[in-house]
């Protein structure tokens, strides 16, 4: 790690430790959910950004993680054991899902994962063992080594530590040979297969790991939110991290984290000023998609490219005569693009 990176991380750590005193306990719950969203979105980016797997059912693993913690919290399992259980359960359910969807790719895969998550949602709504429609209320973390987690500040540190561990894991995965192979699989699955990569197996492992991350995030959410309900499995819960990825930029490790913080803050704000935040989120998504398709983290690159191009053309204001006189029309949009269907496994990048 570079010296600048290390300094940045140290500053971040200090900020996170001082955060409860900076903002006060009242706002802490919102920030708890925001850092949990950071972990969830980062786990989803292993699929979209690294492996090129378009999953629309990550709420399934988030939700089962949350339910796992809620169930064992009632039996006073110690916090680390419960969270590891959430992680394992998320991973196992994700692995089973990847077996079911083994042969599907692209849109079929996206729709199948969506359907599986919805099936789990329906199941959770029906099972009285899981509290049915109302879910499981009163989830609380039992004391551990004398730390009382009903205190908001302790809960915040619990979240920060586990989210940091999760991010570290995903950082290592992305930098590992496995992560690089995933990149190859995303960029050209056919060529990767020719090179001897077992594409489907790699995708299954990536899917399982992302499921572990989602399960852990869900488990943390159960402690912070204190109630787990079928809503945590609902498909809009799968869409939220994807919006975060889009917002932050899927090509960057920190993209989903930045997107998660931005979206959480925005939702928090919109909920106070309007009854219908969906409209604004939708408009924001469209603007980002069309103007900044690589997310807010790509702004420096976009600006640099823009200046570079202007420089090459010999400064601003120089246009061709034809364009000034309206003679040289840009070709209309009739140029047919190559079929998206012909590029298997592409995810989210042109």
């Amino acid at each position, binding site marked *: 790690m570079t010296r600048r990176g290390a300094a940045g991380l140290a500053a971040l750590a200090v900020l996170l430790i001082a955060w409860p005193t900076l903002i006060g306990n009242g706002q802490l719950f919102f920030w708890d959910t925001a850092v949990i969203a950071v972990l969830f979105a980062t786990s989803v980016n292993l699929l979209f950004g690294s492996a090129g797997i378009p999953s629309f059912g990550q709420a399934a693993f988030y939700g089962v993680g949350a339910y796992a913690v809620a169930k064992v919290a009632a039996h006073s399992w110690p916090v680390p054991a419960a969270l590891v259980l959430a992680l394992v359960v998320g991973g196992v359910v994700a692995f089973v899902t990847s077996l079911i969807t083994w042969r599907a*790719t692209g849109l079929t895969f996206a729709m199948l994962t*969506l359907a599986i998550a919805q099936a789990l949602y329906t199941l959770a709504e*029906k099972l009285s063992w899981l509290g049915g429609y109302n879910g499981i209320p009163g989830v609380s973390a039992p004391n551990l080594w004398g730390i009382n987690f009903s205190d908001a500040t302790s809960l915040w540190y619990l979240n920060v530590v586990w989210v940091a561990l999760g991010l570290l894991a995903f950082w290592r995965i992305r930098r590992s040979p496995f992560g690089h192979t995933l990149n190859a699989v995303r960029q050209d699955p056919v060529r990767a297969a020719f090179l001897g990569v077992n594409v489907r197996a790699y995708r299954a492992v990536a899917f399982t790991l992302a499921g572990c991350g989602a399960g852990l995030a869900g488990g943390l959410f159960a402690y912070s939110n204190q109630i787990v309900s079928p809503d945590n499995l609902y498909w809009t819960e799968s869409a939220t991290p994807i919006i975060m990825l889009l917002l932050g930029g899927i090509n960057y490790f920190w993209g989903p984290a930045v997107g998660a913080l931005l979206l959480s803050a925005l939702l928090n704000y919109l909920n106070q000023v309007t009854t219908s935040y*969906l*409209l*604004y989120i939708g408009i924001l998504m469209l603007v980002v998609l069309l103007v900044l*398709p690589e997310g807010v983290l790509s702004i420096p690159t976009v600006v640099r490219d823009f200046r570079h191009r202007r420089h090459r053309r010999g400064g601003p204001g120089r246009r061709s005569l034809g364009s000034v006189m309206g003679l040289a029309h840009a070709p209309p949009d009739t140029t047919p693009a190559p079929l998206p269907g012909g590029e298997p496994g592409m995810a*989210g990048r042109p």
Partner: protein
Amino acid sequence: MIILATGLTDGMLIFLVASGLTLVLGVMRVVNFSHGGFFMIGAYLAYELMRGHVQPVWLFVLLVLAASAATAAIGLVSERILFRRLYRLPEVTSLLGTYALLLILEGAAQLIWGRNPVTQPEPSGLVHAFSIAGAQVPRYDILVVAAGVLTAVGLQVLIKGTELGRQLTAVAEDRYMAGLLGVNVNWVFAATFAIGIFLAGLGGALAGPTLSMVPDIAVTFILQAFAVVIIGGFGSIIGSLIAALALGLLHAFLVNKAPSLADFSLYMLMAAVLVVRPQGLLGSRQLGENL
């Protein structure tokens, strides 16, 4: 008998939504999440035109068609403004764009009509039930089934028998080649989208009297329609008809015989079909193949 009647009606409503979805998917290769939003807009527009009052049947049909046409007009505007920018993007990105449009439509409906449910009564003359073979069947079901049959037949005639249909097929097969051969791809896209959204609006306007309208119906219906499209095979209209009817019948059967399983009928059908035929009932193995 009652199972058959409710199953058929539910299936036809799903088919109306799914047919437009599969048409747009097959021709334009865009997974249109906002389809459910247009379904919802169609329902609300019909409600708005009738002001929630009971109407005679002929006026009801006319206003339903007007609401569908208005929905199609909104769809056409969004196609010109938004969708044409999405065609070039990868499938998953364009899917996010249509999801954003769904959120916008739902948010707009929340602002205009509020979150409280509104209801549209059935047209006068179709209010009561009639009995066949000892079962009470709502008369309104006849209208829905008739609309579904007309749509299925109409789409087949349109695709197999008209110039537009041939162009549609050509663009669905290979839009680049079709463009080279002189088909105005842009125009075909616009026409396809308008037809698809018209069907979404029609489904919504007809479904209006059968449900209490909240902006959330945009989301609940789209999932069923998607499942039907997957089960039937991407882009296959007959496939989605079969799948929609099968789903409607299975659901009605389970509601009667095993109510606790009814909510899973969608997933059961999906699992059963996709394990045997991953490409769907009548799908071809083109989209998203192999790796």
